């Protein structure tokens, strides 16, 4: 009836996951109870859960990422403490628990923090920057988000029901095969990634189509803001790389569920094929994450330097070069497989070549700052912090791309330090910069600068205190994923790293405090202009938060830095243009399709993990029924009457005009 599921699935004998699970459960129930009691449920359902508005979906993505950041972060804290205490002892975490933690940490941080964070920001901002009213496929967008959330949910369910993978975040066979990992951990891993992977693919297709086919008048390719370019590159990579992940995990699942022999030791299966396939996805994946961050930094550096981006075309070229080359370097993840000197050398050199466009980007940001008038608001701090940190990560990255050096550093703590250096220093700093930069656009008020700066400094310093010791430990031969160790020389570095983790935690707390303080002072921090940073691209041309239709008219773009250009023209014409004639606007109707789909996906995923076949069929039928019901819908759009558009737009213009005249009076 319930497949493999019974009471022994719940780890009553292990207090840590049980308590953690209970706390999460209480928190969720508490929030739900509050929502229901306060009567917010209809509002949430109407305005958020069923929303197909790209801005709302973007915000929900970022929210999901932030919550999961706390989960992945607590895993990180537990690991750092374990390695700090587990010298010549077992520490406080037994191996089967520690192994789950580092696997979950990697999986969560990549798939459920970094991915939704950047996808959320792209969703929120790209249509605004392109001057259009929504993404290409609004309902699919909602489906994509909710499927990602389903994956995150399943990973968290594994905390209390059953176990998570103990194989590392890429679940290498044969360790991840049924014979060596007979539990449901790997199944949780694979199914949650399959489901969220579909969501990511949908988001990728959506954004590629949006950038290529939905741009406002005059928004030629070479006038798009840099963030749109990096979004295009990143989502092209998603479209090309995520199917590889889907196929690879499908093969692993076939091995586990139906006794196939893709990656088994027996019957001619080939483990090395898994390594190749997973990294053929895995290496582009890093660029999927970091390219949008590059785009964010481009926007931030240019805005806060008060200059257009230096060498815009060079930057476009560099972005697309990274996009292409990132598919030709996957083998550098296993130089130590013994592939032979020519193969190793070629892939090593290809990996270094990626450093060229990346270096060019750094220099272009540098020269954007040159001759600028730099305002050090929080986003700019993150950007400068990123540039310094990322160069160091780039250095160590090129170092491990040299095969003979990698023969010593592969899989070591040095490598761990390297990829945290680029992922934290690149992606996370970028995500935070984007968060600070675009928060006023999304919510209509700025974030508190003091807490923001405190968060930056603690995170920045905490990062170095945590990860420089890991570089050192790697140089002392320490490998990754050790639940305990007896080597005295590693111990001091582990202690320092744990202290660094504490500093990082303070950074996160500051980040949360910033949010709390800003929400409390939102009236004082209100952004009435829609343009709090003196921005240069079109998202700042509309109000904060933007109306549901974004722009009353598709803006007319005449050059790079479209909004800056408009501001200058407006100033020259003293805003003296006639009020235009407004038209009705068709907007996509909200739809519960995404949520319902995700509901059935959750049921199906859970049932598949536990081999509850009737429930799998039920979930499948439900998903199909949703598809048909969606197809049957008669009205997929609603009309915002011209009068309403006029009212909203005029109010916005009025407000801006008042502010300008006030500024003029001063």
């Amino acid at each position, binding site marked *: 009836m319930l497949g493999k599921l019974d009471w022994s699935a719940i780890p009553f004998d292990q207090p840590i996951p049980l308590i953690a699970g209970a706390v999460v459960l209480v928190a969720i129930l508490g929030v739900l109870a509050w929502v229901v009691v306060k009567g917010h449920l209809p509002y949430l359902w109407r305005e958020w859960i069923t929303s197909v508005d790209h801005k709302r979906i973007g915000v929900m993505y970022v929210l999901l990422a932030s919550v999961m950041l706390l989960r992945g972060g607590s895993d990180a804290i537990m690991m750092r403490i374990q390695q700090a205490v587990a010298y010549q002892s077992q520490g406080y975490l037994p191996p089967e628990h520690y192994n789950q933690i580092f696997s979950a940490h990697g999986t969560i941080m990549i798939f459920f923090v970094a991915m939704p964070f950047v996808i959320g920001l792209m969703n929120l901002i790209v249509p605004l920057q392109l001057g259009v009213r929504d993404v290409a496929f609004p309902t699919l967008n909602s489906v994509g988000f909710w499927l990602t959330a389903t994956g995150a949910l399943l990973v968290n369910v594994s905390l209390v029901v059953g176990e998570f993978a103990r194989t590392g975040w890429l679940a290498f066979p044969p360790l991840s095969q049924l014979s060596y990992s007979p539990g449901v951990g790997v199944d949780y891993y694979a199914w949650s990634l399959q489901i969220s992977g579909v969501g990511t693919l949908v988001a990728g297709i959506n954004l590629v189509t949006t950038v290529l086919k939905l741009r406002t008048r005059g928004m030629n390719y070479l006038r798009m803001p840099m963030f749109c370019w990096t979004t295009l590159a990143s989502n092209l990579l998603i479209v090309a790389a995520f199917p590889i992940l889907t196929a690879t995990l499908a093969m692993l699942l076939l091995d586990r569920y139906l006794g196939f022999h893709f990656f088994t030791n027996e019957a001619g299966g080939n483990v090395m094929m898994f390594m190749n396939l997973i990294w053929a996805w895995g290496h582009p994946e890093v660029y999927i994450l970091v390219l949008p961050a590059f785009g964010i930094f481009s926007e931030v550096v240019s805005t806060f330097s008060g200059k257009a981006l230096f060498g815009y075309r060079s930057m476009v070229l560099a972005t697309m070069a990274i996009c292409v080359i990132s598919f030709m370097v996957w083998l550098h993840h296993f130089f130590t497989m013994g592939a032979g000197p020519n193969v190793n050398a070629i892939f090593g050199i290809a990996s270094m070549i990626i450093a060229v466009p990346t270096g060019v980007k750094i220099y272009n940001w540098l020269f954007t700052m040159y001759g600028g008038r730099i305002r050090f608001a929080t986003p700019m701090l993150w950007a400068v912090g990123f540039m310094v940190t990322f160069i160091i990560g780039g250095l160590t990255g090129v170092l491990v791309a040299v095969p003979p050096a990698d023969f010593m550093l592969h899989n070591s703590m040095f490598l761990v330090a390297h990829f945290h250096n680029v992922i934290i220093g690149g992606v996370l700093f970028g995500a935070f910069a984007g968060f600070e930069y675009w928060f006023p656009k999304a919510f209509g008020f700025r974030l508190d600068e003091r807490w923001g700066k405190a968060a930056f400094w603690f995170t920045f310093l905490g990062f170095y205190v945590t990860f420089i010791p890991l570089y050192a430990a790697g140089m002392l031969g320490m490998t990754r994923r050790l639940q305990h160790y007896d080597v005295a020389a590693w111990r001091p570095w582990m202690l320092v790293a744990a202290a660094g983790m504490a500093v990082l935690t303070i950074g996160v707390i500051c980040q949360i405090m910033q949010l709390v303080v800003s929400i409390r002072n939102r009236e004082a921090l209100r952004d009435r202009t829609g343009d709090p940073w003196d921005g240069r691209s079109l998202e700042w041309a509309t109000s904060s938060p933007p109306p549901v239709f974004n722009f009353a008219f598709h803006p007319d773009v005449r050059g790079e830095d479209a909004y800056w250009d408009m501001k200058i023209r407006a100033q020259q014409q003293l805003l003296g243009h006639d009020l235009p004639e407004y038209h009705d606007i068709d907007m996509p109707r909200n739809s519960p399709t995404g949520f319902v789909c995700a509901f059935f996906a959750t049921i199906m995923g859970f049932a598949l993990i536990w081999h509850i076949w009737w429930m799998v069929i039920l979930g499948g039928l439900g998903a199909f029924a949703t598809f048909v019901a969606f*197809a049957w819908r008669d009205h997929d759009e609603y009309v915002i009457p011209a009068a309403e558009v006029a009212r909203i737009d005029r109010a916005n213009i009025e407000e801006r005009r008042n502010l300008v005249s006030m500024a003029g009076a001063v």
Partner: protein
Amino acid sequence: MAMTETVGRAHADPHHIGLVIEHPGPAPKRIVTAYGFWVFLLSDIVMFSCFFAAYAVLHGQTADGPKGSEIFEQRNVAIETVCLLLSSFTCGMASIAADTRNRFWFYLGMAVTCALGLIFLAIEFREFADLVARGYGPSRSAFLTAFFSLVGCHGLHVSAGVLWLLTMMAQVFAKGFRADILRRMMCFALFWHALDIIWVAVFSVVYLLGSAV
């Protein structure tokens, strides 16, 4: 407005060369939908290419089980191929009928497409069932694993296509040739033709090259 700086000239494209052709604005829905679906098809082809790659790597790993030439039946595969290629033609007929709003030819075209698809699936299913019955199931060897998954993956796509086809017919029956339904029809047609292309690759790589050895 927090505009503090003025640049001497309106800062358009500072390093622009030659004539600019102004982008006309967002594309119409039909174009956007088809474009997005093309992108999806490309991603689907990437997924298939992984299974092709796995087949290429594993096709020699028979683990003392049968080789391809011992289990492939040319006659069945030929019938399958003819069915699928013909169904592409009838699907094209249905598309044209939909564009001209001709219900009769639309239903006829779709029904024949469906029938051909089902014949294809029936033959494939029989081939698989026969192999499993002889003990040559996918867990027999890595070669059979790769064979079953590659061909089976295509089969699953065809099954999904048949389901979609029936839904399309029902939609036209219930709602008529509405603009959004025509857009879906266009996507369906693209999907069905893409399956054909993939089958040609499966046919060549698996059955033709496989039987030659």
